[in-house]
């Protein structure tokens, strides 16, 4: 149910994002989804890639600080209120969402959203109970 995400620390410096992506490109790693959190001084690049362990190695070799952690990918109806429906489930279960971002690719007719809840297991449980489709890692990489 859990999906591995790679996070990369980016100092607020010209060309640093490019250097990270270039390292991945050279290792022929295709990015499935990404988001960047930015503060006034640094950024965190978050990535979903088919081979997270490999990506981590490549980035660390390039002197990046990298962390692997678990997120959840859920299917969301691609219509107004689709995402709101999912978030209502979490809100009702009193689960805090730290961040989320979307895939470009669709899963059939559904949009795919990456979710990071404060407590991943509690998040999965609440989503499952509400009957929301959680994608397995293989399904995500096959998109």
């Amino acid at each position, binding site marked *: 149910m859990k999906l591995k995400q790679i*996070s990369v*620390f980016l100092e607020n410096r010209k060309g640093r994002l490019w250097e990270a992506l270039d390292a991945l490109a050279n290792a022929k790693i295709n990015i499935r989804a990404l988001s960047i959190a930015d*503060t006034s*001084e640094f950024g965190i690049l978050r990535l979903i890639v088919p081979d997270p362990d490999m990506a981590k190695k490549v980035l660390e070799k390039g*002197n990046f*600080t990298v962390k692997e952690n678990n997120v959840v990918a859920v299917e969301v109806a691609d219509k107004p209120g689709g995402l709101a429906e999912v978030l209502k489930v979490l809100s009702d279960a009193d689960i805090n969402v730290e961040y989320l971002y979307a895939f470009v690719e669709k899963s059939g007719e559904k949009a795919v959203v990456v979710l990071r809840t404060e407590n991943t297991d509690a998040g999965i449980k609440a989503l499952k109970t509400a009957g929301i489709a959680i994608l397995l890692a293989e399904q995500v990489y096959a998109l």
Partner: protein
Amino acid sequence: MIWNKQAECMPDKELRKLQLERLKETVRRAYENVPYYKKKFDELKIKPSDITSLRDIVKLPYTTKTDLREGYPFGMFAVPGKDIVEVHTSSGTTGKPVVAGYTRGDIDTWGEVVARCLTMAGATSSSIIQNGYGYGMFTGGMGIHYGSHKIGATIVPVSAGNTKRQIDLMQDFGTTLITCTPSYALYLAEAAGEDGVDRKKIKLRAGCFGAEVWTEKMREEIESRFRILALNIYGLTEIIGPGVAHECDKKAGLHIFEDHFYPEIISPETLEPLPDGERGELVFTTLTREGMPMIRFRTRDVTTLRREPCKCGRTVVRMDRITGRSDDMLKIRGVLIFPSQIERALLEVKGIEPQYQIIVTRPRHLDEMEVQVELSNKMFSDEVKHIEEFRKKIEAHIEKSVGIRVKVTLVEPKSLPRSEGKAKRVFDKRELK
């Protein structure tokens, strides 16, 4: 105007004679009454009677801040406690503070030398002096206070900070002379400008600025913004506080009151005295201090002594504006800090890499210290808030243990330059030279 023409314009020969008399007396009192000096002199096999000329001063040992700290609190006092009427301390951020003890006579001397300073800035008994130096353990506030009393001017003991009030008082009371740090003066000028204060309402004519290193460029700015004469005042707790030296309106260096303080310039490397005109570390011996005589105190301040006569008529020696320190100590908003203190504080935070850089700047005229720390894997998280929490934790810890608010910036691991030898960790970009 000259406050004490006799002392400030004394013919050289007479001054040397007076200095020698006073030096002998100081050395004798230090030896007889301060165990620290007795021990040091005995070790070097020096007797007070060995001092027969001013040149003999080189036989005497140097005194450092560390020596004074070891005597904490009253170990350096040369008189019984009943004769001490006031004490002050240095900021004490680099360990135990240095305590300065004053007898009634010392307070009188202090008032005298500060009166000379204020007079150089045009103060008279009709002046209204707004004293923006901090009152309390810091010597700045009280020193100016005593000088103003000596002159008979009206002192406004507003102390440091409280900008709005400073500006109000300046207008309402008709302040003619202000004393504060130069950076605060600029800040005040800016704040007054933002408040739309009419310059015509301000009667300010001059300011005595010190307690931190500043530049000619800052002087120009203060002078043009406030349209006043901005003069440099120098002093240090160990010697007496403010009032050791001050600039006259010729702005050609600070006149040292040599009848009370004997200056030398030494090489901080070889510790050998340097001739006049050469740049080196300033060393002072007090000539009249009763409570705490100081023999060859190493100030760590770097300057040059100039003997050429000044157009103002004063004969006492002048020192150049202080341009730096002979150790790696930094003065941030008036607080002395060793980079090693920052390092120690950093290493006390769990999960931190011992790689850092200190960058000191002065945006908007106030010193700011940025500490760049390499982010370690342990600190990194996919969530911004966790990283921010960690960053703030480091800031809070530095503030708690060093006593100064800094800005911590996280940088990527291995991004700070490594060096084989002594790493250059401090980048002072304040352009104080």
